[in-house]
């Protein structure tokens, strides 16, 4: 992660020494092309080159978004979707964490848990939607269950690998200095696995939004997905785009929150210490 964030900065400093290109111009320059696209889009719509049935104009999207927000529909649908993600994520991440701890901390647990989880993982979990509908009906349960299932795997895989990746020499050191098995787990194994666990959590989050999009196509009567499929029936591309924007904004916001959490919890990481 850190390498990808460092690379562009390094490339920029080679091409554009700060002496003659001040730092503040860089973000502006990066914004220029998206802004140009927006302007062109709006122009095409206003000139009638782009039919609203194909794509609504940016201004129209804003206006519809504003109307929906004022009427309370938007807030309600966002809350319903957020609720599904929160419930599914809580269940999925708890189960994934629990299984990873059992499999990571004992050989017996690994033998019992790891093989079936790895087998299940190869199955595209979205393909289970028909089964979920048969088993759980078309209410809230299959939607939350789908999010839970999808989010359990990334946290499991990363946390399990993180636990097994802790330097065994550190654990030995802990034993020499009188830590019990419990103490080794608490002071050495779990903190050592935390960076991987957080990476897994971020994967889980992105999977959560993905599963939500699919889950909300199952006969929903509220939620962002419902808003989108309802708009589809009335050819309202503006409402569809508001829904897509909401998905993107929610995803970005949550990711930013997790990254802030990461900065707090992993303050000891040498890459962060020097920054």
């Amino acid at each position, binding site marked *: 992660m850190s390498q990808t964030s460092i690379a562009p900065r390094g490339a920029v400093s080679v091409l554009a020494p700060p002496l003659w290109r001040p730092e503040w111009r860089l973000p502006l320059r990066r914004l220029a092309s998206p802004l140009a696209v927006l302007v062109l889009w709006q122009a095409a719509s206003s000139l009638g080159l782009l039919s609203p049935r194909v794509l609504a104009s940016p201004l129209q999207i804003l206006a519809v978004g504003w109307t929906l927000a004022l009427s309370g529909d938007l807030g309600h649908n966002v809350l319903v979707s957020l609720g599904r993600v929160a419930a599914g994520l809580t269940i999925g991440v708890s189960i994934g964490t629990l299984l990873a701890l059992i499999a990571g901390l004992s050989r017996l647990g690994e033998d019992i848990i790891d093989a079936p989880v790895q087998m299940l993982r190869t199955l595209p979990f979205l393909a289970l939607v028909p089964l979920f509908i048969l088993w759980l009906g078309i209410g809230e349960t299959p939607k939350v269950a789908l999010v839970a299932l999808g989010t359990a795997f990334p946290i499991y895989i990363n946390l399990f690998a993180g636990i097994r990746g802790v330097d065994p020499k550190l654990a*030995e050191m802990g034993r020499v*200095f009188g830590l019990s098995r419990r103490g080794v787990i608490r002071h050495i194994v779990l903190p050592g696995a*935390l960076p991987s666990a957080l990476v897994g959590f971020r994967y889980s989050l992105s999977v959560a939004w993905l599963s939500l999009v699919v889950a909300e196509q199952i006969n929903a009567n509220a939620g962002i997905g419902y808003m989108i499929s309802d708009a589809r029936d009335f050819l309202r591309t503006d409402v569809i785009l508001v829904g897509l924007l909401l998905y993107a904004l929610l995803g970005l916001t949550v990711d930013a929150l997790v990254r802030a959490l990461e900065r707090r919890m992993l303050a*000891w990481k*040498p890459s962060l210490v020097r920054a």
Partner: protein
Amino acid sequence: MSGATQVRNLTRRFAADRPPVLDRLDLDIAPGEFVALLGASGSGKTTLLRTLAGLDPVPEGAAVDVQLPAAVVFQQPLLLPWKTVWQNVALGLGGPDQRERAEAALREVGLAHRSTVWPGTLSGGEAQRAALARALLRAPAVLLLDEPFAALDALTRLRMHDLVLDLWERHRPATLLVTHDVDEAVVLADRLLVLEHGRIALDLPNPSARPRERSDPALAGLRVQLLAQLGVHSRAA
């Protein structure tokens, strides 16, 4: 038991068809004694130290008695990157005054000013000093040093020698220093052991008075003897 460490009849082999790494080894270390253990790579030095540290089980038929508390300084500092320096030093300690005790130990190794930083910001020498403070804090009766200076640069290593001697003179733990470095061994230790074919092949007292000069001719004689035992012969001879 009167000694700080007593080993009897210690045999360890890693494969049944290979000669044992340690072969019916006997070793006694007196309280407060500074012993250096030399040997070629693979001679079993680290295996012996691991057994003394309790990291490897004592095989059947052997008796290993190490006076407690014992502490180890490893070749790498092995500090936990997610704990501050003083928390690392106080690892496994508990008690309300653990921070004061950790900081006192850090003062002794000259690292008081780095007490609250993350280990990731320490230099190699500083990290090893923190590891030394962590061992010291346990007031060990037996201090096991597993090539603790091997990964340091030459100047830092010399400073660490002085620091270890200083601490040893103040606290007097029985000390076993595992090392490759003959010069280091003759300057620091009172007794010099060479491990060969799984047994103590040479057991030399070091009569040279402290403080020792590295250029002391008495040390040069010991050095030649040790090197000869290790299979390195002087060209002049």
